[in-house]
């Protein structure tokens, strides 16, 4: 841990986290108070919440080689379970539970749903995995859209206001921001730890050569399903936060658009490292909010499309790939005496 903190990656991570911790104090200096709270809750807070869901996809894609489109549905399962069981939601389907019970229940449900996705898709790879997870996601979307008894159909379940944290209501932008930041940091650290553990190493082995790993005596299918379970836990945490952030959940949150948005966040951020999910999510939140202000209101989707296209075109491995290459380029330029050493 100490050694890692002294490494360059560790320093960057610790520095970035410290910056995000003091960000709520900096923002009001840069802009009027109401805008600062908007940026805190609805640009940075939102980016972190959706970044958690995108990170579950990045984790699967980077370390397992599985691009799953069902992550938003898994997040939706957690969100719906919380909305169905928690006290105060409207309409009240089951109700009666406190947030302290409903939230763990939602995350457990998400893990089970993710394990199910893993089992169903265990024999597929690449484009076929993409298709089967997309089919599951669309099946879930249509189901919640048409089922009235449990999911209240098209209108969804609203008024999930969230618990009070240390006596503060969840609707305060600071509370949303800090809770999601700490949650994201914990999950992020967890992912970095997990991929260095034997489980994570086997997972990366499966990504590179599943047959060789099987020949070494590991159960490939079991590891794959377990990886989906881990990703389900991450997506479930994100799904609970998303539901509270949106004051409820409706089929639109798990529809095709939302499913693709998570993929876009992961890809523009970069599928090489979990941090890419948060960078992509921040870029997404910024352009999704301000494109209509920057560009023509009737055609702002064009701007969003062009920006994302440009990022992927310039750098197939997203923003973090771009950053890595520019860093290597600058280093090479500022230290010409080291030309003999290839980097």
């Amino acid at each position: 841990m100490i050694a890692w903190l002294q490494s360059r990656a560790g320093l960057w991570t610790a520095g970035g986290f410290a910056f995000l911790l003091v960000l709520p104090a900096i923002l009001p200096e840069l802009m009027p108070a109401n805008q600062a709270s908007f940026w805190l809750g609805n640009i940075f807070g939102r980016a972190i919440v959706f970044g958690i869901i995108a990170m579950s996809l990045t984790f699967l894609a980077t370390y397992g080689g599985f691009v799953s489109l069902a992550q938003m549905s898994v997040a939706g399962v957690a969100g719906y379970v919380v909305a169905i069981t928690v006290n105060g939601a409207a309409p009240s389907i089951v109700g009666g539970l406190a947030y302290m019970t409903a939230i763990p229940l939602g995350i457990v449900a998400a893990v089970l749903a993710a394990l199910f996705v893993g089992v169903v898709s265990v024999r597929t790879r690449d484009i076929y995995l993409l298709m089967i997870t997309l089919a599951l996601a669309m099946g879930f979307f249509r189901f919640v859209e048409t089922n009235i008894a449990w999911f209240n159909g098209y209108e969804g379940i609203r008024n999930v206001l969230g618990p009070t944290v240390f006596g503060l209501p969840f609707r305060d932008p600071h509370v949303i921001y800090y809770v999601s930041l700490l949650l994201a940091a914990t999950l992020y650290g967890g992912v970095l730890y997990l991929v260095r553990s034997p489980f994570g190493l086997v997972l990366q082995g499966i990504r590179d050569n599943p047959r060789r790993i099987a020949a070494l005596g590991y159960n490939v299918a079991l590891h794959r399903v377990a990886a989906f379970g881990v990703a389900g836990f991450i997506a479930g945490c994100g799904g609970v936060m998303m539901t509270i952030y949106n004051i409820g959940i409706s089929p639109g949150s798990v529809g095709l658009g939302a499913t693709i948005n998570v993929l876009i966040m992961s890809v523009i951020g970069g599928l090489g490292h979990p941090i890419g999910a948060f960078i992509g999510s921040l870029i997404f939140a910024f352009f999704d909010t301000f494109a209509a202000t920057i560009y023509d209101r009737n055609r702002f989707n064009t701007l969003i499309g062009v920006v994302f296209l440009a990022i992927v075109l310039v750098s197939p491995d997203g923003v973090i790939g771009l950053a890595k290459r520019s860093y290597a380029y600058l280093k090479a330029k500022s230290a010409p005496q080291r030309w003999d050493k290839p980097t």
Partner: protein
Amino acid sequence: MTIRVSRRRALQGAGALAVAAATLKAPAIAQNAPIRIGSVATLEGPFATGGQDAYRAMEMLFQAENMTIGGRRIEWIRESSNAQADVALARARKLIEQDNVDFIIGPLSGAEGIALKDYSATLNGKTIINGGSGAADTTLRNPSRNFFRFNTDGTQWMAGLGTYVRRTLNVSEVTIVAGDYAFPYAQVFGFSLEFCRLGGKANYLWAPLGTTDFASQIAQIPRSSGALVVVHGGTDGLAFMTQYAQAGGNLPLIGGSIMADATMMSARGPHRRLMVGMVSGGPVADVIDDPQWNDFVARYKRMPGAFPSPSIHAVNFATNTMAAILALKQVNGDLSGGQAAFQRALQGLKFKAPTGAEVSLDHNRHAISDVFLNRIEERNGQPTTVAFQRATQINQTLGVPEAQFLALGAPSRNNPGCVAAS
């Protein structure tokens, strides 16, 4: 001594200046500051043309005021959503928190409306006035004190139809074919409530959204039915009507509020024979014999890109925008004091909507207004909806006491509202 400025230095300096400029807060000018109005409608997704038409009507009304009310200029900030609740919520948050608007007019569709109602409940001193969304629960259950709706909902739009079928057509049994989702549930509920109260009997056949083959359903229509109530929309409605006409169906037809829309009216085929004479209910028609409506349509037609007749979304947004303008005039543009006076003015409004229908609000801040019974007639070779009767001052519970109405539960396929008079 010379001052040398490297490019890096210059860039750093420029960056610092930019940050400093952004930091400087603009001095607050209270006197005659503009009234900032935000709006959310769908400029993308399935209702994109409806959203554009809604903004067309709003622009027309603001221009008629010369963009000024009570000496304050109107600053109108338009946002777009795609008919998804989360997107509408994100846009509303941006309008309120980033753009600092005084109030929002919008959104357009049902789930969006419920999401914004919940959001408005978390606000202080801000108001959301509905645009065109028509889900009952936006105002009926857990209403928000900051959310006002001056248009009627899907259940209200069927008011008068049940009575018309039972009394005027003297039909005692109908078959209702409807889509299996929220909006048809609400419409079927409104029809059944009235029809069954008058001793009618209803059979129900539900089909999921996107059904293309209705042959088996058409075969299931009981022979004892005296009329057919069709609550489908768009391509589903077209598919049903085409197959019903091909099967030689000839029962009198009653339509839901989105049956008589552009898809149905402009498509050619065997359904045309059945469409003429179809009776439907709704908040608007192409032809309404009312000077207010004729004047509104004439002004609307002068707007660039206008349709031959304003869409239902344009009329709903216009009704709500008219309410906002009237209330602003009453308080002379004064939105101070947490908008208390403005909200009081909204609550107390009594005015004529573009259709000529009298509008006022109930205690849940939902519209009590008139709805129209329309018949499709052939006019100049074009099928046209003509309002021939008006159900006046319909409230959200269709005249049923609110507690009793709420006890019936939310409309669904298992709860279509067919309860006999007790």
